[in-house]
């Protein structure tokens, strides 16, 4: 029996701009807080929208949960009208929310997880990092420049090892997160490579680079994919991405977290 998804209007606990154009929103949704796994997402729409434009809810990854309080956090960038409307919502107002949705990251029991997040890609990874407390694990988080690094403190609090990089070298390692990953993976011997698994979220080129780095070393890699979604719940078949074997996979059901080798990276 699958887990029950929740479809409701949830109250906003807080919704603050933590960087220019980047918001952290916390909503009261106890059932979703209790049943979400890292890598899963919700479909969300600002309750303040008067009318049918924008029409669709938007997919956002679950960023953190507080089961006790029943809170769920989302970290999002204002891109277009849907996220703009969300950003304009105040504490106490409502959002329409459906979730948790999709297949999250699957971390094997004995695995040493390496989390790789570029930019907003850290959104689902903080939730994952939080669940790895006490385990051996590394998170590589990066951004273009120091001021764009997101949520470093909460990452540090999880207790797992954090490697930071910026493209301009203004903080941490200079370079792309994938370059840090490359160096890290290169240091591993064959046996260690069998133990680690990479979990990655970010822009498509970053995911592809991550996949190739892992593939060439035979390291298990999961990526969180993005596509336009109408329903997020398997009804419309709109979220197809090309599969390795020639057919299609549906990001909202078979994903958003996929074993990278299942996808076509052409």
């Amino acid at each position, binding site marked *: 029996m*699958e*887990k*029950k*998804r929740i*479809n409701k209007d949830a109250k906003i606990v807080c919704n603050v701009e933590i960087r220019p154009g980047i918001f952290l929103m916390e909503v009261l949704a106890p059932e979703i807080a209790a049943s979400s796994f890292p890598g899963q997402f919700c479909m969300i*729409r600002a309750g303040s929208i008067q*009318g*049918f*434009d*924008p*029409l*669709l*809810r938007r997919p956002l990854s679950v960023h953190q949960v507080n089961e006790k309080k029943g809170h769920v956090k989302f970290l999002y960038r204002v891109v277009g009208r849907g996220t703009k409307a969300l950003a304009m919502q105040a504490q106490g107002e409502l959002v*329409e929310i*459906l979730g948790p949705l999709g297949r999250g990251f699957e971390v094997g029991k004995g695995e040493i997880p390496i989390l790789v997040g570029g930019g907003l890609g850290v959104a689902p990874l903080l939730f994952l990092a939080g669940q790895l407390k006490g385990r051996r694990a590394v998170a590589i988080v990066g951004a273009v420049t120091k001021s764009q690094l997101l949520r470093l403190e909460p990452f540090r609090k999880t207790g797992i090892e954090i490697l930071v990089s910026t493209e301009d070298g203004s903080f941490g390692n200079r370079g792309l997160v994938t370059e840090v990953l490359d160096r890290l993976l290169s240091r591993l011997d064959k046996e260690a490579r069998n133990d680690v698994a990479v979990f990655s979220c970010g822009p498509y080129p970053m995911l592809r680079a991550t996949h190739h780095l892992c593939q060439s070393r035979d390291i298990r890699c999961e990526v969180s994919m993005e*596509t*336009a*979604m*109408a*329903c997020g*719940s*398997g*009804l*419309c*078949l*709109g*979220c*197809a*991405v*090309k599969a390795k074997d*020639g*057919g*299609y996979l549906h990001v909202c059901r078979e994903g958003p977290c996929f074993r990278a080798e299942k996808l076509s990276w052409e």
Partner: protein
Amino acid sequence: MTKGGKKEPDIRLRLGQLSLENPVLLASGTCGYGNELFDLVDLRNLGAIVVKGISVEPRTGNPPPRIHETPCGLLNAIGLENVGIERFKTERLPWLQRHKIKTIVNILGNSVSEYEKMAACLDGLEGVHALEVNISCPNVKEGGAAFGIDPKTAAEVTTAVKRACSLPVIVKLSPNVTDICEIATAVEGAGADAVSLINTLIGMAIDIRGRRPVLGNVFGGLSGPAIRPVAVRMVWQVARTVSIPVIGIGGISTYRDAVEFLMAGASAIQVGTATLVDPGAPEKILHGLIDFMVRNNYSSLDELIIRD
């Protein structure tokens, strides 16, 4: 049953041989095969579910991107991805049967004989209560124009399907025609038990940064609130032209929209895009409709219809 002291309205209806408990149906392609909604909607509370269009062979569908949001609308070019009739029967139908969900199977084909084959294959199956024939598909033998844009081919498909089965047959009309009444009349003449309308309007969008059509398939079908005025108009016209029941579809998102179609002459309605946005929408629409009828002293669906 009474509601706030007033009598609960009778919202049952008949579509040919098929009787439904209420007029709120789920539109094909927006509710999967039902089981995708298992935890979100109790489908037995709705009039019926029209499952995703089924073809003789499985189809993988169109290359992505397949969907694109437009003002108050949704463009889709799913490309009729479906599991094919065999897997539908073995993998999907049993769940619908087991849960006693009133199921209408939407069928599509590229030739009259494909439609006929599907109808024969679904005839008499437990759990299949009616067929909805999607005639917006390309007629491969005749140059690829849709069956539904020509009264002759639309009637041919209808005749073939009726001949091949004893199920109630609903023909789903395309709005991309000059005169939808002409098509409706043709399929009525060919024996259709009901017509449903509208399917999506053909549209497209261009990615101005990428300098290319947004959708992998170039063209897509436009659905959602944007198309509602066109759909209401066509339902109004068709309901005044044919004597068989009309099922209204197109942008229905609230109970008020549903009432609009029922007043225009529809016997039932289907909720499509609104279910994608909010899976709770169909049930809200049903309850809103009942409340509206109670508030305004309508005792049956028939009384809603505006007769001129």
